[in-house]
């Protein structure tokens, strides 16, 4: 990499475009394993370090990204001491009612070490804060418009927060989804769109044409739905390539 290139990145991306997100300069040989065919290319990596989506896919929806984020451990920072390993393990499992029970029991134990007490109190406050944020998130997901993505995430939240208020809120939203005919139609359309997208390899010209045809039919059938709008956007994107 030349200094000239470094300067270009600084001038164009940082200064002119005002990029606020993390930027990294890399050597072209080092990215060969990604098999990049065009620029810009977007890959999404999941919390396990595996490739979740490649440029041939549709950019994952915000709800899908949220569902990936839900898999990220919410474990707050705590001392490295072994005595906190059981608590760390509970956070990692993402079963927050068990975290709450552990903390409450530990805090109620007679003669608790003052340092541990401080850690547990901080953890408990952090858990409460996360529960409030999760409940708020349930409301956002319930408002749509990506009900198919929201349903997946609400189901996951219901499991993670079982026995705590966010789970009850998620369950209530899922029941509402099941009872609302308009949302049911959106859910059906969302799943059908996922199926159509999965049937074709858009990196191949012939298949891309077939995908466009299938999406055009889909957009007609599901006109007026969010998935229908998404299909129209996908058609435009595929035609540009």
């Amino acid at each position, binding site marked *: 990499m030349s200094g000239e290139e470094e300067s270009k990145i600084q001038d164009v991306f940082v200064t002119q475009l005002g990029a606020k*997100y993390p930027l990294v300069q890399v050597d072209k040989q080092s*990215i060969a394993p990604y098999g990049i065919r065009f620029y810009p290319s977007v890959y999404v990596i999941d919390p396990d370090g595996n490739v979740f989506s490649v440029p041939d896919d549709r950019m994952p929806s915000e709800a899908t990204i949220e569902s990936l984020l839900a898999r990220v451990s919410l474990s707050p920072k705590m001392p490295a001491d072994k005595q906190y390993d059981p608590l760390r393990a509970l956070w990692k499992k993402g079963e927050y009612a068990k975290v709450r029970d552990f903390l409450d029991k530990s805090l109620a134990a007679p003669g608790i070490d003052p340092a541990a007490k401080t850690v547990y109190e901080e953890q408990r406050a952090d858990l409460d804060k996360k529960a409030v944020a999760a409940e708020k998130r349930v409301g956002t997901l319930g408002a749509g418009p990506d009900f198919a993505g929201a349903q997946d995430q609400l189901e996951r939240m219901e499991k993670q927060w079982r026995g705590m208020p966010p789970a009850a809120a998620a369950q209530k939203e899922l029941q509402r989804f099941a009872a609302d005919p308009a949302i049911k139609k959106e859910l059906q359309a969302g799943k059908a769109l996922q199926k159509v997208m999965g049937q074709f390899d858009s990196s191949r010209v012939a298949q891309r044409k077939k995908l466009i045809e299938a999406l055009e039919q889909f957009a007609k059938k599901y006109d007026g739905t969010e998935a229908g709008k998404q299909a129209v956007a996908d058609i435009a994107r595929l035609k540009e390539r």
Partner: protein
Amino acid sequence: MASLSCRPMVMRLLSVLAAATLVVTAATAQVAKGSPAPAIPFVKTWNDAPASFDEFAGKVVILKFSETW
């Protein structure tokens, strides 16, 4: 994309810049979905980007590869 960058700290939007002279062909084999993301050595970073690829462990990462002209 900009809205996504406002998500919690666990997510990073990372733009990786490749060399201008890179020639890309349709025959390039793309990394398989579900396979471990190949680590990339960083030459230089801006905007609080991590010092190494390993620092993304456990996070959701959006890698956007762009090139300079």
